[in-house]
């Protein structure tokens, strides 16, 4: 027994030493002395960057400050948020409507910040829903979800919401191919024959930001994973990584890992755009929702759309080309110049770097090694700039700085590796704790990286924080990249599971941030413009309460004449015009959530009382010294009662004269 133990111990030590031999000397496990100062933002001072982080399976988007790692706000996007009434208020419910009905949750993976000429313009943030395929646009003035567009002909919108240089398009590529069109009830093992993938190009209006499904490209049923647009010289092209070129429909872990190479798909979207303009696309009947928030009405609408224009690249041979890429590629990242495309094969021993110039030459000389599903496959060597040799294990994502360096995350060997694009030499590496997924360099995907930091979004937390039972927070780590060596500055916990994130200089957003909604501009159909206009109206079994809130009372705050079977709509207008004075509203027994109403805003809570009695209502957001007094009552009488509808605030009942 004892001998065995010793034998095992020695073996384990030997194996471990083999592993550690792969690691560079001087692995930093300790933090150097000035880290605290570099990540410290004194009380009352502002951070240098906004970090806009995906919330993964929380479905939301979160806003952090860098370098402090402080959480400022969680923006509800694809999941309901009772704290803010999102998905519960009548105004916000349509945002979560889909062709499948109301969907209260999704999985938000990636962030794309809008750019003009390839540089952050601070207008919008886009996020993708992986489960029920959608793209959301967040207005960076209000930090609220402004629009959600569902993607038809798609299952698993993972390869999204990456954008072109001037935010002409946001893309959506199918991770899960599905049968499309009229024939959707098919045997799963007819995958190769019946399952298709698509990549969608969604146009974005330059001024309003409004999204529209411009066209879809119909593709073989591979899994589209990630994507990046070309920029500068490669503007007009889009690159998508794909795995499962085996087109397996079961046990993909094994069956989709058979081939030595999968592909990066290069799409000439300018060409595709020309064909669409020339009317070459096919109109397909589909069904998807288009949800928009009207900022002046504080209300969302949901519209069903029924048409998609689809382009089959087999008929237009100069749109789509396959670049062979080892092996099961995940990240697919273009450098700031737009010349280099970095593929990160999860199972590959090298990082291939492709050259846009060489790709153009190979296309013009038809330097193909064959075709895949009728579309040309370019010769690997003909388009390769070079390979980063022995970079680490399990490369996932690459970000860039402005000085010609790339930073690649390695999931299996838990490290960030810095390498030079020109000669493909590794120049530095740091360990992450643990198993890093995405990386973020401020401006990393743009033509003008702001640099300074790289943030690792780790997949495994283990012992980094005080334990909180089986479920732990996700862990991000901030590194300085200002010197030759990357330096760990800070660990900070995050919400959900952050996948991709972007960071943008604070001044690009802070100066435009909305403080209040102007009462004069409130176009809500149920606005109460001043206390004078507050009232209660009955329409059949609907009771509409036009209510105002101001420090510290509701008008009306005494309501009688509601009957069992009625639906009461509280339309609450916050009359404040002062920054950061929201009022909340809650009523006992409501089967939904609270309202949180910003200054100048109107929001509606629907309440269906299920018993008779008197029900308190109150303000949930501490608003003033007399916040506790901000309360009222609603009386609910039996259905056949003849209590008249009445409402008041501040009418003190006169005591009846004492009986003599």
């Amino acid at each position: 027994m004892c001998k065995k133990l010793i034998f095992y111990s020695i073996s384990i030590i030997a194996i471990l030493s083999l592993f550690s031999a792969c690691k560079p000397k001087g692995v930093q496990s300790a933090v150097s002395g000035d880290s605290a100062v570099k990540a410290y933002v004194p009380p009352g001072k502002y951070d240098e960057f906004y970090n806009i982080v995906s919330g993964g399976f929380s479905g939301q988007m979160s806003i952090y400050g860098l370098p402090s790692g402080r959480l400022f706000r969680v923006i509800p996007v694809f999941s309901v948020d009772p704290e803010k009434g999102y998905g519960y208020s009548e105004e916000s419910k349509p945002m979560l409507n889909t062709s499948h009905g109301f969907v209260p949750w999704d999985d938000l993976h990636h962030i794309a910040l809008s750019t003009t000429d390839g540089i952050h313009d601070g207008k919008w943030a886009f996020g993708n829903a992986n489960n029920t395929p959608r793209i959301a646009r967040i207005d960076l003035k209000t930090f609220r979800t402004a629009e959600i567009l569902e993607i038809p002909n798609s299952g698993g919108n993972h390869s999204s919401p990456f954008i072109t240089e001037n935010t002409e398009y946001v893309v959506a590529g199918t991770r899960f191919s599905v049968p499309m069109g009229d024939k959707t009830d098919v045997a799963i093992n007819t995958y190769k024959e019946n399952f298709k993938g698509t990549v969608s190009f969604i146009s974005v209006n330059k001024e309003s930001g409004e999204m529209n499904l411009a066209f879809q490209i119909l593709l073989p049923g591979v899994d589209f994973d990630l994507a990046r647009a070309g920029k500068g010289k490669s503007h007009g092209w889009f690159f998508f990584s794909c795995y499962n070129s085996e087109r397996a429909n079961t046990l993909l872990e094994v069956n989709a890992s058979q081939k030595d190479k999968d592909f990066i798909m290069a799409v000439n979207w300018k060409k595709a755009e020309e064909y669409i303009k020339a009317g070459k696309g096919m109109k397909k009947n589909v069904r998807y929702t288009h949800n928009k928030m009207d900022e002046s009405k504080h209300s969302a609408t949901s519209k069903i759309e029924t048409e998609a224009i689809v382009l089959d690249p087999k008929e237009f041979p100069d749109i789509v080309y396959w670049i062979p890429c080892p092996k099961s590629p995940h990240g697919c990242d273009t450098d700031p110049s737009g010349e280099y495309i970095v593929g990160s094969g999860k199972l590959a021993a090298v990082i291939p770097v492709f050259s846009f110039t060489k790709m153009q030459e190979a296309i013009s000389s038809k330097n193909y090694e064959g075709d895949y599903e009728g579309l040309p496959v370019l010769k690997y060597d003909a388009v390769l700039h070079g390979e980063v040799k022995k970079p680490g294990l399990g490369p996932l994502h690459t970000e860039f700085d402005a000085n010609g360096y790339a930073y690649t995350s390695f999931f299996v060997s838990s490290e960030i590796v810095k390498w030079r694009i020109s000669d493909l030499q590794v120049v530095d590496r740091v360990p992450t704790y643990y198993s890093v997924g995405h990386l973020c360099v401020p401006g990393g995907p743009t033509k003008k990286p702001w640099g300074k930091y790289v943030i690792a979004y780790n997949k495994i937390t283990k012992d980094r924080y005080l334990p909180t039972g089986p479920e732990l927070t996700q862990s991000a780590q901030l590194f300085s990249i200002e010197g030759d060596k990357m330096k760990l500055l800070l660990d900070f916990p995050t919400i959900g599971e952050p996948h991709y994130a972007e960071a943008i200089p604070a001044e690009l957003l802070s100066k435009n941030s909305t403080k209040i909604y102007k009462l004069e501009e409130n176009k809500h159909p149920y606005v109460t413009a001043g206390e004078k206009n507050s009232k209660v109206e009955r329409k059949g079994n609907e009771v509409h309460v036009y209510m105002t809130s101001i420090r510290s009372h509701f008008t009306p705050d005494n309501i009688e004449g509601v009957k069992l079977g009625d639906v009461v709509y509280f339309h609450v207008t916050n009359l404040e015009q002062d920054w950061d004075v929201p009022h909340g509203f809650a009523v006992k027994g409501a089967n939904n959530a609270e309202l949180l109403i910003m200054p100048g805003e109107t929001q509606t809570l629907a309440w269906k009382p299920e018993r008779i009695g008197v029900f308190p209502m109150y303000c949930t957001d501490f608003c003033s010294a007399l916040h506790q007094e901000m309360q009222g009552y609603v009386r609910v009488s039996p259905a056949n009662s003849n209590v008249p509808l009445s409402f008041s605030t501040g009418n003190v009942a006169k005591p009846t004269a004492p009986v003599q």
Partner: protein
Amino acid sequence: MKNKIFLISFLCALFFWQCDKGVKKDYKAVEVEELTKNQPEVHGTEIKEGEITFATPLNSEWVTQGQNIYDLKCMACHKLTDEKLVGPGWKGVTKVRKPTWIMNMIINVDMMLESDPEAQKLLEQCLVRMPNQNVSKEEARSIIEFMRKNDGEQ
């Protein structure tokens, strides 16, 4: 044992002392003023003595505009009688307060609550800060015209 602990502490101290060299504070602060630019929320500049003059008869256009603003933004807290609601009632306000004081209370409430003893006294009585209701200088002037009407001027 004690010696060991001492030695470790000493080494740690040495390590941190070594690393502490070359520390520089390089965070960049965003200008606070920058945040308030281009914002719909208006903070007025101080109204000086003599800037506001009264004329009779009242400007009826201003009276109407003032009343509309009152209905939307002031009525929730101020009655037109001398009865206190959240804030004091308006009856007689133009007789008791100087026009500059009223103007500053409407558009410069933070300054007033910080420096004006009368405003501070009112806060002690009402316990709710008079809010900034995003009223411009011109709008505030029309509110005063409405107050004058409320006080019986023609």
